[in-house]
């Protein structure tokens, strides 16, 4: 077990959520639930963060922001979709300005549904996320890949193949 999963730092971004899940994410950090006892700290800097907690169903305006935050985070990294809006679009699925789910923008590792998501569900999701973080770290050490990109994702991501960094765009071409 590495030191990373003993003290994962989280970053939170509100991608057109109603605030309900956001205040529950914050509530996790405060005395009643107090995830800081597990070494989890909320940070504002993507480069310091291991886990990205995203709430809300992404819209056209903030899809770039979500993708930028994701790309700025260093490997290994885990994305947790908090709340039903982040999972599928939820009640806003039929709205004209929602894309419906964070997985439309970035690859998601763990889904934590609920409206609003309960702090217990967020903590459970983070614990599952830690296992994935450890797997990714081991894979990274062995020179295997990094975060998998979903097919409809528009941003470029790097992969490491035989110790060489290959741009995702180039990979797409080789895949045909």
């Amino acid at each position: 077990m590495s030191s990373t999963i003993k003290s994962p730092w989280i970053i939170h971004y509100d991608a057109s959520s109603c605030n309900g899940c956001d205040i529950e994410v914050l509530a996790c950090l405060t005395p009643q639930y107090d995830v800081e006892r597990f070494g989890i700290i909320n940070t504002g800097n993507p480069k310091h963060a291991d886990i990205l907690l995203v709430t809300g169903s992404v819209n056209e305006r903030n899809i770039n922001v979500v993708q930028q935050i994701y790309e700025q985070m260093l490997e290994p990294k885990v994305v947790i979709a908090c709340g039903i809006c982040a999972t599928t679009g939820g009640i806003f699925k039929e709205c004209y300005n929602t894309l419906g789910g964070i997985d439309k923008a970035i690859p998601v590792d763990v889904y934590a549904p609920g409206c609003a998501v309960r702090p217990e569900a967020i903590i459970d999701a983070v614990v599952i996320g830690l296992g994935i973080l450890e797997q990714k770290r081991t894979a990274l050490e062995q020179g295997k890949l990094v975060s998998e990109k979903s097919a409809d994702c528009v941003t470029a991501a790097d992969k490491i193949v035989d110790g060489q960094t290959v741009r995702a765009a180039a990979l797409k071409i080789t895949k045909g």
Partner: protein
Amino acid sequence: MGKKTIIPFGPQHPVLPEPVHVDLVVEDEKVIEAIPQIGFIHRGLEKLVQKKDFMQFVAVTERICGICAFGHSMGYSETIEILMGLEIPKRAQYLRVIWHELSRIHSHLLWLGLLADGFGYENLFMQCWRLRENVLGIFEKTTGGRVIFSACNVGGVTQDIEDGDLKGIVAILDGMRSEYEELLKTFLYDSSVKNRLSGIGYLSKQDAESLCLAGPFARASGLVEDCRLDGYGGYGDLAAFEPVLSEDGDGHARCEVRAREVYQSMDIIAEMVSKIPDTPISLPVKGMPGAGTAAVHHVEQPRGESFYYAKGNGTKFLSRFRIRTPTSHNIGGMTKILQGCDLADVALNILTIDPCISCTER
């Protein structure tokens, strides 16, 4: 005079729980202009009235904002009740006021915590949020939900609180008072808090009036602006209601107004519980909003006046639903107080207006 530089602030920023983007035009350390950009949380929720019928739409209005969730469902329900000419039972009106004022306590404690976090007083932040969990506990006990709890419906409320539990709520709030007293002393008289907040983001009464500000932001500048004064619903039965005002108009005054409003809400809840009548909690809603009918209504949310408009067309779908939320008035005041402030005070100034971007952009 230095050269003009534009510094982008947001949408992702540690001090902001919600995304808002401000382009700060700075000259040396002074901000000379702040240009807000919004749209990061726009979902297009008002158009959903064409897909969800007027009874289902309560669930959507509740999700306009997770902090003032109950207030929005109450505002929408009251608008539809005015539209259809319904007079709901007294007990339902009182229960609505009780939940709404509990929401105000939770919202203000949340904001006081975020403010403390904004100037680096981590301990105070944790204490505010610890106290706030008591209120969320009440929500969970009475309705099952913590932040979004679907207790309001067109025609009344969905669940009753038994008289014994109502007394329990008052007892919990009374228990909070002594602990809250200590926090209040820190916010109002602690020298480090005072030094950080006094004189920051001053806004005169004239400016507050001309910018049509709402809620605690306006009241901190001495403007008497509170929809609860109308006495609609349960508020009409209060023995006396006096809005909390301050004349100072700076960040500390805004902190003081919100901090004192927590006590006011506790008093309102205690009074409502002592007077609550024993009537049904809802009445059956028959028929549809008539063709060509329209209604307007306003509700005092924790952040200020929220305005509702609904237009019926004889079917179960409304033809138009419109909300104007307090932060959309207050963003004008925010850009005003950002002009001429130090770059280091920008985050705090944005915080002191208590922006709710989810409400504003819907």
